[in-house]
């Protein structure tokens, strides 16, 4: 079974090809091909997971490109990390695709949607299976393409194309760093293969400078993909895509690819602690800043988007302090509970036809399953015992605490309070109180095809954390092969703080929004600048628009003008100069050269004209001339002697 692991991404590719090539003939049958394909992939992944858990591993490769002294091999490998991620990705993808049966029903581009989802799944699976950086980059870019295509699904709506472009371009800036890293690493080692590179790095065969460049470049790519500070701007806009897409791509899988990349490359980072520091700080800052924005956003999907950014920051923070297991653990649990939250939000949006939480309310009784599922996801996100987030977030905070960087630790704790607060706020605004709009009043529970995946995911949101818990003997840690042991005292201390933080945030939000003990508007009026700062997400968008977008367009317009006017003007001027020179030469030719020839003839003629007047026909004159001639000759002879 394990030797067939390479087939896992092949099924979705086939689905994509079949749906894509049949075009309009497919009509609305795309899902009938895509879902079985991803189901098969999921079953394969499960089988692979089981075999990897039994200690087997898989690696296959072939020569992709070579010339003398140069060889690039491509291959697939399955290690515990990949095996775990394969299951997560195929499972979430499967559930999302089933959910989409209901959510996307009647969409005019239903089959295209499923084709894109299939391609995405295939690319994401390839990304996980890749045994080298180049193949990973290729898959990495392809998931970016799918993200672009899926964000742009409603491409006729205003603002949607811009959002798609923004996502692609922002991540592309990061990918540039990724590519630089690959160039540096290949020129230093002559291979893209993970294992070979890690082996070389650990023996010190790669210079520190190169490693810094490589790790920094990789992190740039990861930060772009995972929407880390300062690349976070694209993810909230990416919510323009269909909600299931947000769940799958912009919460559970693709955005986590950045974290996966760092986790994969952790052996490199461990050699260059200074870059590790950067990763940790960027993660911490992102976690805190994004969580703060989550407090004030009213769009339910945007709350979840900022939450995603914040949680990805947590993972980066964990990896940045060198903790492989907590980062990956949180990556896994987050994939489940964030997909759940998004799908729950999607169910709400599907029912209420708005994304603005101010127009919701009172949905608890109208949509019981959705409410239950969303609640489970929220508790997991807030990190409440015994939900999944509790264990994974806990382990990250513990790792940060153990690393001794108390600033980062407290940033994480504050972010945890904010997280608990904003998600409770979202839950209360959406599901409690009275409906605040007609849509909310008439909302009905979604069809089972949507609620069943929600309930399945709820189970994972509750239980996924247990895999990494102490009471289960940390099955996941053992599976991943990384022992993660911290002193019990630290664990207890951190657990207490984290629980207090989570409950504190929840209680605060409940008092504010459920019991309405005090009005949040008091705060926003007291500190309008702060409120605006958060509302505008620290003005990043405005800044980027002014500086990069507008600036680049201005420069481009200038270059276009410059090219047209100056460079081409110069060419044309040279051309004109040549033409005028030719005309001038032509004139000179007529005047001077030809003029000389003609002029000579003319003057001879004119001279003849003069002379011939002498020949006046009077014989006496001729005779006189003769006389004069004789006289002059005589005189001349006389004088000359």
């Amino acid at each position, binding site marked *: 079974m394990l030797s067939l692991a390479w087939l896992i991404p092949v099924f979705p590719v086939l689905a994509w090809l079949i749906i894509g090539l049949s075009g309009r003939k497919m009509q609305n049958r795309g899902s009938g091909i895509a879902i079985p394909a991803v189901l098969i992939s999921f079953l394969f992944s499960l089988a692979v997971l089981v075999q990897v858990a039994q200690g087997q591993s898989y690696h296959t490769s072939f020569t992709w490109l070579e010339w003398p002294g140069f060889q690039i091999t491509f291959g697939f490998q399955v290690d515990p990390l990949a095996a775990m991620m394969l299951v997560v990705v195929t499972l979430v993808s499967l559930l999302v695709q089933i959910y989409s049966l209901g959510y996307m029903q009647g969409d005019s581009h239903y089959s295209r949607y499923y084709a894109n989802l299939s391609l995405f799944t295939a690319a994401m699976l390839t990304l996980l299976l890749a045994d080298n950086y180049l193949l990973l980059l290729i898959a990495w870019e392809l998931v970016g393409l799918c993200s672009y295509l899926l964000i742009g699904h409603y491409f006729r709506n205003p603002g949607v194309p811009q959002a798609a472009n923004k996502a692609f371009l922002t991540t592309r800036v990061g990918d540039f760093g990724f590519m630089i890293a690959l160039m540096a690493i290949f020129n230093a080692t002559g291979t893209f293969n993970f294992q070979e590179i890690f082996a070389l790095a650990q023996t010190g065969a790669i210079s520190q400078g190169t490693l810094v460049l490589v790790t920094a470049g990789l992190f740039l790519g990861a930060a772009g993909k995972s929407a880390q500070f300062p690349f976070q701007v694209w993810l909230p806009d990416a919510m323009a895509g269909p909600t299931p897409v947000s769940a799958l791509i912009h919460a559970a899988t693709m955005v986590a690819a950045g974290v996966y990349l760092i986790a994969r490359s952790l052996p490199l980072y461990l050699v260059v602690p200074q870059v590790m520091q950067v990763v940790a700080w960027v993660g911490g800052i992102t976690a805190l800043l994004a969580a703060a924005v989550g407090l004030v956003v009213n769009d339910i999907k945007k709350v979840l988007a900022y939450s995603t950014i914040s949680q990805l920051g947590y993972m980066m923070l964990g990896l940045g302090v060198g903790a492989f297991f907590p980062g990956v653990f949180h990556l896994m649990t987050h994939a489940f509970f964030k997909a759940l939250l998004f799908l729950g939000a999607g169910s709400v949006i599907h029912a209420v036809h708005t994304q603005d939480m101010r127009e919701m309310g009172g949905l608890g009784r109208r949509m019981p399953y959705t409410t239950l599922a969303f609640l489970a996801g929220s508790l997991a996100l807030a990190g409440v015992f015994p939900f999944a987030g509790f264990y994974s977030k806990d382990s990250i905070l513990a790792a940060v605490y153990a690393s001794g960087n108390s600033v980062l630790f407290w940033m994480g704790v504050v972010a945890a309070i904010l997280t608990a607060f904003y998600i409770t706020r979202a839950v209360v605004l959406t599901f409690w109180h009275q409906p605040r709009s007609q849509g909310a009043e008439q909302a009905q529970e979604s069809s089972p095809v949507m609620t069943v995946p929600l309930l399945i995911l709820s189970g994972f949101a509750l239980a996924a954390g247990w895999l990494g818990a102490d009471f289960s003997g940390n099955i996941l840690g053992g599976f991943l092969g990384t022992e993660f042991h911290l002193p019990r005292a630290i664990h207890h201390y951190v657990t207490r703080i984290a629980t207090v933080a989570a409950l504190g945030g929840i209680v605060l939000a409940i008092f504010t929004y459920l019991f309405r003990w005090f009005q949040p508007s008091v705060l926003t009026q007291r500190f309008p600048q702060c409120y605006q700062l958060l509302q505008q997400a620290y003005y990043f968008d405005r800044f980027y628009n002014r500086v990069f977008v507008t600036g680049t367009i201005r420069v481009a317009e200038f270059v276009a003008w410059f090219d047209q006017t100056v460079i081409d003007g110069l060419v044309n001027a040279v051309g004109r100069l040549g033409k005028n020179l030719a005309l001038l030469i032509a004139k000179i030719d007529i005047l001077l050269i030809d003029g000389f020839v003609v002029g000579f003839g003319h003057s001879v003629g004119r001279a003849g004209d003069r002379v011939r007047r002498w*020949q006046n*026909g009077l*014989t*006496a004159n001729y005779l006189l001339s003769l006389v004069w001639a004789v006289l002059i000759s005589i005189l001349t002879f006389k004088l000359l002697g």
Partner: protein
Amino acid sequence: MIPLSWVLALAGLLFGIGLLGALLSTNAVRMLICIELMLNAVNINLVAFSRYQGQAHGEIVALFAMAIGAAEAAVGLAIFVAVARNSKVIDIDKINLLKW
């Protein structure tokens, strides 16, 4: 014997008359006569020098000149006759068809 200068003076006078006549006359025949005068003035010169030097060269040349002069007169007159027949004019100033 008459001094040479006298003879030369005569010849010069004769030549001058001929020259003036040739220059000033408009009648073609008269012009031809005047030319004959000039020719013969030269002949006189030739003969005179020949006599005074005691050599026959000059006289021989004079004889030639007379012969040529006769021939010339004949040709000249013939031309004039032809011209006169054509244009009924003998005025030398009016005979200018060959000019530019």
